[in-house]
């Protein structure tokens, strides 16, 4: 049942919205379908096609609701062709089109606030219950429920269409979707606060989303790029912290424990995405992650190539965070002194004043340059900027090791 929930929820809900043309009514019908499944599957066994069973049940439920006239609210604009219009009320699961992309594009519409896009995607596409979404995103349940309600109201009142975007908008809108998935992942990958470094569930949901998107639009190189990027992190997840939950730096991670099958999949995805044309930001980040994943050791990493890829990434996605990561790679090619000059320029720019990895990187370089007193100062700056308990503990250890 848990698997059916995780794997089928998006498709079942997406197909039900087509009937109700209202997100709340569809959600209610889908929830009811899962309740019925819980009742009958235990008694009669799991049907041969759980997804089709759930879709049929949810849509029947929704149709009954419509007949009782329970949803008289404004209908979501569907943007259907005439042949598709006839299919709206169909109950035969084999003729129901896959509407998951419509659902994803609606949840990640740029007219919704970014935090609402993330919340709606987790709730509606991944089927995560609102209290769990609240916990994952570190807000109260009341706040999250209000955020989701407000976003659904805007969708209904402003008539955000339940549709894939027009061709002219598609690239930008797909990028917005990928940004949301990446945000879900980075929120989970390094939980900004709380006791654990990795909030596994969010990272896993992001990976599910990326896999689903890659299956739905296999020809989009940036979707493959994002999937590869998330998989590259996934392959290394067992080694990012030790048995006590403490951070292990990339240089110190046990590379024999990286998941080689996943690394091979990353490589295939990256190669295909790179061959598809000028790479976008996710493909380039994935290519960098792939170089790390394939390197025999930290020292044996192809750092020169990493710098080249960061240069290309900077060209398509200028960002001080990219500059900082590039500086880390430059330290391995041209030495910590050259890298320190780059980092100091970022400090002077001030854009990353609240970003803990800036002083943390600077501290690292200073340590390597034999300037421990200054390194301790920067470690302390980083410590003041992070709420993540595992990172705080890591920084305290570094400070203690320097006698600070």
């Amino acid at each position, binding site marked *: 049942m848990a698997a059916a929930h995780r794997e089928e929820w998006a498709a079942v809900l997406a197909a039900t919205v087509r009937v109700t043309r209202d997100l709340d009514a569809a959600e209610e019908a889908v929830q009811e379908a899962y309740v019925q499944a819980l009742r009958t599957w235990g008694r009669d066994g799991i049907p041969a096609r759980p997804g089709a069973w759930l879709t049929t049940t949810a849509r029947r439920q929704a149709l009954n609701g419509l007949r009782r006239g329970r949803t008289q609210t404004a209908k979501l604009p569907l*943007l259907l062709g005439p042949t598709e219009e006839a299919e709206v009320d169909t109950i035969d699961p084999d003729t129901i089109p896959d509407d998951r992309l419509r659902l994803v594009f609606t949840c990640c519409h740029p007219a919704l606030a970014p935090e609402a896009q993330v919340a709606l995607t987790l709730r509606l596409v991944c089927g995560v219950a609102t209290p769990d979404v609240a916990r994952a995103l570190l807000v109260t349940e009341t706040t999250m429920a209000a955020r989701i309600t407000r976003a659904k109201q805007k969708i209904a009142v*402003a008539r955000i*269409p339940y*549709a894939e975007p*027009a061709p002219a*908008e598609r690239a930008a809108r797909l990028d917005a979707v990928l940004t949301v998935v990446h945000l879900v992942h980075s929120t989970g990958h390094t939980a900004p606060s709380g006791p654990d470094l990795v909030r596994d569930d969010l990272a896993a949901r992001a990976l599910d989303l990326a896999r689903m998107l890659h299956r739905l639009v296999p020809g989009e190189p940036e979707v493959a790029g994002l999937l590869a990027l998330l998989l590259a992190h996934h392959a290394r997840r067992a080694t990012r912290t030790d048995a006590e939950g403490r951070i292990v730096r990339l240089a110190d991670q046990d590379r024999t424990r990286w998941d080689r099958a996943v690394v091979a999949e990353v490589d295939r995805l990256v190669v295909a995405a790179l061959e598809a044309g000028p790479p976008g930001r996710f493909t380039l980040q994935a290519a960098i992650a792939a170089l790390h994943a394939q390197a025999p050791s930290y020292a044996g990493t192809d750092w020169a190539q990493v710098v080249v890829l960061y240069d290309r990434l900077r060209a398509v996605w200028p960002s001080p965070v990219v500059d900082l990561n590039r500086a880390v790679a430059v330290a391995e090619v041209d030495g910590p002194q050259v890298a320190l000059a780059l980092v100091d320029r970022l400090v002077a720019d001030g854009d990353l004043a609240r970003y803990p990895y800036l002083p943390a990187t600077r501290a690292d370089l200073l340590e390597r340059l034999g300037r421990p007193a200054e390194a301790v100062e920067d470690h302390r700056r980083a410590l003041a900027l992070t709420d993540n308990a595992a990172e705080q503990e890591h920084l305290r250890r570094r400070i203690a090791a320097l006698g600070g």
Partner: protein
Amino acid sequence: MAQYAVIIYEREGVEMPPEVMAAHEALGGRIVGAGGREVAGLALEPTSTATSIRNGVISDGPFIESKEAILGVFVIEARDLDHAIELAAMTPIVDGGVEVRPLLDFAVVDPPEDDS
């Protein structure tokens, strides 16, 4: 079709060059060409002519002081928000932007033709 207000904001004191004025005049036709309709429009005199009344107190100037001021409002009919955004983005702007807001189903202007 649904109705949306498109609220035009421009920087205070901005000059409207003749080509922008001409583009405003041509906007209705372009909206029709893109499958929408302009239902109503209002153009406002500069905020230097505005008078505000707050809690019964009368004062000179706009209600909200800001770098940008509302210069006009027009109402369009569009299929959905994506269509409305496409139409609103055609608005000629010198140094500002537009805000798109759905209208309450409360018609002081022509009601939408249908609700498909």
